[in-house]
């Protein structure tokens, strides 16, 4: 029934379901995109530099004559992969440590919470920049930096969820049934903290994409010529003023569209997860 109610809300909330559909489509593009794009996203062509959008080049070409449509599509894979990996790492680490901290309390909670307080007090973007700078300009360090700066959100979420459920009936029942602390955390608390976590994940995927492109925009992280939306925007930014708006517009549009869909989906999921927000 819960499932059918969820489906019902999904159906009723057009925005959410459209967002979900677009995300599925984008994931498909991320997987199959490189197979279906009309041009090699890396191939330069001096004869076709900065062509406006046309039937041949739907999104036009960039300053090296590369097909922007192909690059935008292929970039989906990298941007999504980074976002998914980063969010997966931070979510897994964050909720595990958070749930332990919240449930067990005591000195463990004290220490981890202080550490997270320190992390929260850091200016996020600067922290991400510094981390990428430290670990070197690579996809891995963008993933690592993004997951580190997102860790506190999951930690806090899981910690509050776990702490609020410490004395809830089914945890007491679990103890009565002979479950150890670890078993209580991983069999009872974590699965039940999932709905808010899923909402957070959905919103976070969007932020992670934004973060990646932000880093790329200031020249950190992914190295060219890898197609990446942030890099494309950064490269195109200087061309906007000379009228080649398509160099910025389409990667930006792809970026906005995917972040938008993730946040819309997260919003919708939140409404479904939290019955009070329902009408």
């Amino acid at each position, binding site marked *: 029934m819960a499932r059918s109610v969820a489906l019902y809300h999904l159906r009723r909330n057009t925005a959410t379901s459209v967002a979900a559909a677009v995300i599925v489509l984008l994931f498909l593009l991320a997987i199959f995109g490189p197979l279906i794009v009309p041009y090699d996203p890396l191939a330069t062509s001096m004869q076709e530099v900065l062509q406006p959008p046309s039937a041949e080049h739907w999104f036009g070409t960039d300053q090296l004559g590369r097909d922007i449509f192909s690059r935008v599509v292929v970039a989906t894979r990298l941007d999504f992969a980074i976002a998914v990996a980063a969010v997966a790492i931070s979510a897994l680490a964050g909720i595990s440590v958070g749930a332990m901290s919240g449930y067990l309390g005591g000195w463990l909670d004290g220490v981890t919470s202080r550490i997270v307080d320190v992390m929260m007090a850091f200016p996020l973007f*600067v922290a991400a*920049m*510094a981390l990428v700078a430290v670990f070197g300009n690579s996809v891995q360090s963008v993933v690592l930096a993004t997951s580190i700066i997102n860790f506190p959100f999951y930690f806090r979420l899981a910690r509050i969820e776990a702490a609020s459920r410490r004395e809830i009936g089914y945890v007491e029942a679990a103890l009565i049934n002979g479950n150890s602390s670890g078993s209580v955390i991983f069999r009872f608390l974590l699965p039940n903290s999932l709905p808010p976590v899923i909402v957070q994940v959905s919103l976070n995927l969007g932020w992670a994409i934004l973060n990646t492109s932000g880093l790329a925009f200031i020249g950190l992280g992914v190295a060219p010529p890898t197609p990446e939306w942030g890099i494309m925007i950064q490269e195109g930014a200087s061309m906007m*003023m000379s009228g080649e708006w398509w160099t910025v517009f389409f990667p930006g549009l792809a970026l906005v569209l995917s972040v938008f869909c993730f*946040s*819309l989906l997260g919003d919708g999921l939140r409404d479904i997860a939290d019955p009070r927000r329902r*009408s």
Partner: protein
Amino acid sequence: MKHRTLRLIAWRLLMALPILFGVIVVTFVLIRALPGDPAIVYASGPNMSQEDIDAIRRAMGLDKSVFEQFLIYLNNIAHLNFGNSLVTGQPVLKDFGERLPATLELAVFAFALSLVVALPVGVLSALYRDSWIDQLVRVITSVSAAMPGFFFGLILIFIFYFLMGIAPEPIGRLSGWSIAPPTVTGFMTIDAALIGDWEIFWEALGKMLMPAASMAIFAVAPLMRMMRGGMIDALDSDYIKAARAYGIPRRKILLQYALPNAMLPVLATMGMVLSTMLGANIMIEKLFAWPGIGSYSVNALTGVDYAPVQAFVLIVAVLFVLMTLAIDILSAAIDPRYKLKG
């Protein structure tokens, strides 16, 4: 009661010290992990010999052990000495003194802008829950939340400055030809108002509009969502039902019963938004050549200029701690149930 509150505030500030210490340690370690030898960077002349570089390293104290460097750094901080910037060659504190007001003014203005947009819209959205207004607002705010500030800024510059020519040049706080009012608060608008120079006042305000809008765009969605959620929770609550049952006029219910209660969760978000605006406006500052601490510290970071980065992180952390405290105090002032966490 007053006395107790003061004690609690003092206690809270004391409790923030370990956090700040943690920030100092992490920053210190992180920044020393940065690739690049500051002595080499500083000795920018490619014609310098190894001896020259070593001499510079000694002069910068980088030949000492990291632990020793840390103790020296701590001692300096204790004396409010944040060192000198390699990039600008000035004391970091002086650099910040010149830049922080610009960042603060922009952040405050952007913050005000986002509140002015988000809060009424959130209330409206809650009042007309699930109507087309609500749906439209949610779609628009979701789009705005998805818009990277730098992209939005680019679009604004392109449309309003480049194409239409109605926006001022996206460079700095004043036009290149105008004379800045004497620095009193460091806030260009306020300083202009202080000497009654309204032309400069309006110019400074106009200059802030596009960067502030670019910064505000990310904040509108979370604020609006919290406002909407808080308002819905408040409207669904027993006390609103009771107030209606007692015939209290609708206006009064909205303004004196629902709104204050709905503002409570928004307060926390406001804190988050403001601190993000202070710490994460780097790209906007770069885009608009805004003379703030954001672009300053990014330059420092890429130039392995230790002192400004350390100071920047510390300052933002202090602002964050103060902001959290301010939000706590504000919450306690509004909500009698809210206890300042000691």
